[in-house]
C-alpha cells in the first residue's frame, strides 16, 4: 500500500483535517441537517450512523462541498469547501458515493485511472503503480479489462473504491462503502479504511451496520432527524437506551466474547416467543 499512502496522505495523527461548524441545510422549510459540529482528524475512522432519513448522506454531501449549507460552514484544512477550486479539494479529499453510475462502458482499469485526474501533470510516471495497487487492494486484478456495466453490484462498488484509493487523498468520505458487499468484502473494505487511517488518513464512513461500526471505527457519530445526538468512542455511543430512542426498536448491546468489541442486535419479540415455545414443547 506504499504508493497509495505517501506523500499526500501523511499528516500528523490527530491533526484536524475536516471541520464542520454549526452546519445545517434547509429544504422547503425543513431542516435536513442542523447544528452539526464535527471534526475529522487524521489517523481516525469515524463512522456516521443513524436511521434511514436521518441525514447521513446529506451531511456527507455538505462535508464534501456538494451542497450549499443554509448555515454554518465546512473547512478542509485551510480551505472553505464551497469556495475552493475543485482540483485543490480533490488532491486532499476523495468521496465514494452511494451510487456508482457510469454512462459509458469504461473498463475497471480506466475507472480506477480516473482517480488520478487531480494529479494530472504531477508525477505522472507514478500513476500506473498507484492504479495497479489500488486495484490489487480491492481484489479486482482479474477484472481490469472487464467493462464496468458488466460487473456485479459488489464488484462495481469495489471498482469505485479503487478509484477513490487511486486518488490518494488524505481525507476520505465514504457513503455506505459496504452496502453492496458480502461479509468478506465488507471486512476487507473496513480493513482498508483502518489501514489508511493508521497511515495518517482521516476516514469518514456512513454505515448501517452498528456492529461493523463498533468493530472498526475509532469514533461513532450518531445522527437522528438531522441532528447529531452523540459523538464518541463506540462504547460511549452504542448505548441500548440511546439506540432504542434513535431507531425506535429495542436493541441489545453486548460485548463479544474474547475480543470485547460491542455487538448490537435488535430484540426480536416474536421470534423469541416462538423459540421459547418451541423449547418448552421439547422439554
Amino acid at each position, binding site marked *: *500500500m*506504499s*504508493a497509495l499512502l505517501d506523500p499526500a496522505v501523511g499528516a500528523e495523527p490527530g491533526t484536524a483535517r475536516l471541520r464542520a461548524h454549526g452546519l445545517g441545510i434547509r429544504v422547503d422549510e425543513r431542516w435536513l441537517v442542523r447544528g452539526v459540529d464535527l471534526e475529522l482528524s487524521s489517523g481516525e475512522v469515524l463512522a456516521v450512523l443513524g436511521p434511514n432519513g436521518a441525514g447521513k448522506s446529506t451531511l456527507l454531501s455538505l462535508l*464534501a462541498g*456538494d451542497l450549499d449549507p443554509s448555515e454554518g460552514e465546512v473547512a478542509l484544512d485551510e480551505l472553505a469547501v464551497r469556495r475552493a*477550486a*475543485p*482540483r*485543490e*479539494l*480533490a*488532491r486532499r*479529499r*476523495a*468521496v465514494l*458515493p452511494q451510487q*456508482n*453510475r*457510469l*454512462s*459509458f*462502458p*469504461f*473498463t475497471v*482499469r*480506466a*475507472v480506477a485511472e*480516473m*482517480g488520478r*485526474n*487531480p494529479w*494530472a501533470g504531477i508525477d505522472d510516471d507514478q500513476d*500506473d*503503480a498507484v492504479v*495497479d*495497487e489500488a*486495484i*490489487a*487492494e480491492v*481484489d479486482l*486484478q482479474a477484472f*481490469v*479489462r472487464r467493462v464496468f456495466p458488466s460487473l456485479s453490484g459488489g464488484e462495481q462498488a469495489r471498482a469505485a473504491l479503487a478509484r477513490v484509493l487511486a*486518488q490518494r487523498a488524505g481525507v476520505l468520505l465514504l457513503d455506505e462503502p459496504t452496502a453492496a458487499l458480502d461479509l468478506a468484502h465488507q*471486512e*476487507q473494505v473496513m*480493513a*482498508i479504511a*483502518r*489501514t489508511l487511517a493508521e497511515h495518517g488518513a482521516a476516514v469518514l464512513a456512513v454505515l448501517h451496520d452498528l456492529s461493523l461500526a463498533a468493530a472498526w471505527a475509532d469514533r461513532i457519530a450518531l445522527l437522528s432527524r438531522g441532528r447529531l445526538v452523540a459523538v464518541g468512542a463506540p462504547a460511549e455511543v452504542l448505548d441500548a437506551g440511546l439506540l432504542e430512542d434513535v431507531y425506535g426498536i429495542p436493541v441489545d448491546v453486548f460485548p463479544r466474547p474474547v475480543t470485547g468489541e460491542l455487538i448490537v442486535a435488535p430484540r426480536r419479540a416474536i421470534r423469541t416467543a416462538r423459540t421459547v415455545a418451541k423449547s418448552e414443547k421439547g422439554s
Partner: protein
Amino acid sequence: MTGVDGLARSRDVAAAAAAGASRRRLRRDARVVAMFAGLAVAIVIAALVSAAIGQYHLPLGAVADSVLHGLSGPLHLGAPIPDPFGEATLWQVRLPRIVMALLVGAALSCSGALLQGVFGNPLADPGVIGVSSGAALGASIAIVTGVGALGSFAIAGSAFTMGLAATVLIYALSRGSSRTETVTLVLTGIAVNAVCGAGVALCTYLGTQAQLDQIVFWQLGSLNGSQWGYVVTMLPLAAVGMIGAFALSRRLDLLALGDRSARHLGVDVERLRLVAIILAAATVAAAVAFSGIIAFVGLVVPHLLRAIVGPGHRVLLPMSALGGALLLVVADTVARNAIANVDLPIGMLTTFVGGPFFLWQLRRTRARAGGWA
C-alpha cells in the same frame, strides 16, 4: 487483506499486475495507432478516388499527380493534368467539395462524440439535440432578411448564434437538479427541433422564390457548389472546435461518473459543460452553415468507433473526426455519382443509413437497460 502480510501480498500482486498492464497497454496502443493509420490512408484513397470519378472522368494517376503538384508548391513534385478543363474541374469543383466533405464530416462526428460525453448520454447528437436545426433556422433567417447576401460570413455567423442558442436552451431545459435526464433530453430536443422547424417554415413562407430555393437546399443537405471560400471560412471554426474538444478529453471521461463524482475528482463541471457546448455548437454551426443538415453522422460514427476502441475520449474524439471525414467523403461521392447527371442531397443519404441505425441502437439500449430512463 489485513495486516502486514496482506499489504506485502497486495504489493507483489500489484507489481505483477503492473507488468501485465503495461504489456496490454502496448498491444492496445499498437492497435489504436494501426486504426489511426488505416483511417488516414483510407481517407487519402477515398478522396483521390472521389476526385477522379464524376461526370467528367479523370484518370486516378493524373489526379494524384496534380494534387501532389498543388501541395508540393516550390518543390515542383508531380504535374498538373495536361487537359486544362480537367485541371479546372479538379481544382475549382471537386477538390473544394471534397475538402468540405472531410471538414464537415470531421466536425459533425467529433462534436457528436463531444456532446455525447457532455450529456453522459450515448444517444445525444447535434441533430437530436437541435443544434443543427437551430443553426439552419439562423441561416434561413439570414437568407430571408437579406443579411445572407452580405456574404458567407454573415450566414455562418447567424447559423453559429442560433445553433448555440438552441443547444443552450435544450441544455438548460433538460437539466434537473444534478443530472441530465435522458428522456427529458430527447423530448426537449424534439420540442426545440419542432420550433426551429416551424421557424424555418415561416422563413420559406416569407421568402422570395430564390430564397425559398436556397432554404430548401439547405435542409436537404448538400455539398454541391462548395468553393475554396467556404473551406477558408469553415476551417478555423472547425479547427478551434476540434482541437478544443481534444483538450477536454480527459475531463470528459470523468463526466461519465456523473457530475458529482467528476467534481470530487477536481473537474469544474459547469465550466467544462459550457466550454464543451460552445465548442460543439461552433463546429456544428460552421458545418451546417455551408452544407445544410447532414443528420446522423454525429451519432453513427462515434457509436461504431466506441464499440471498437472503447469510450475513452482521448482516442474516441480524434478517431471520430477521421471516421466522420471518411464517411462523408464516401457518402458525397455516392451522392454525386449514384445516378447519372443527378446530385443527390447528401443529408438524405446519411439519414437513409443513419435512421435505421438509430432505431437499432434504440432497441439495443432498451433491451439492455430495460428502458430509456
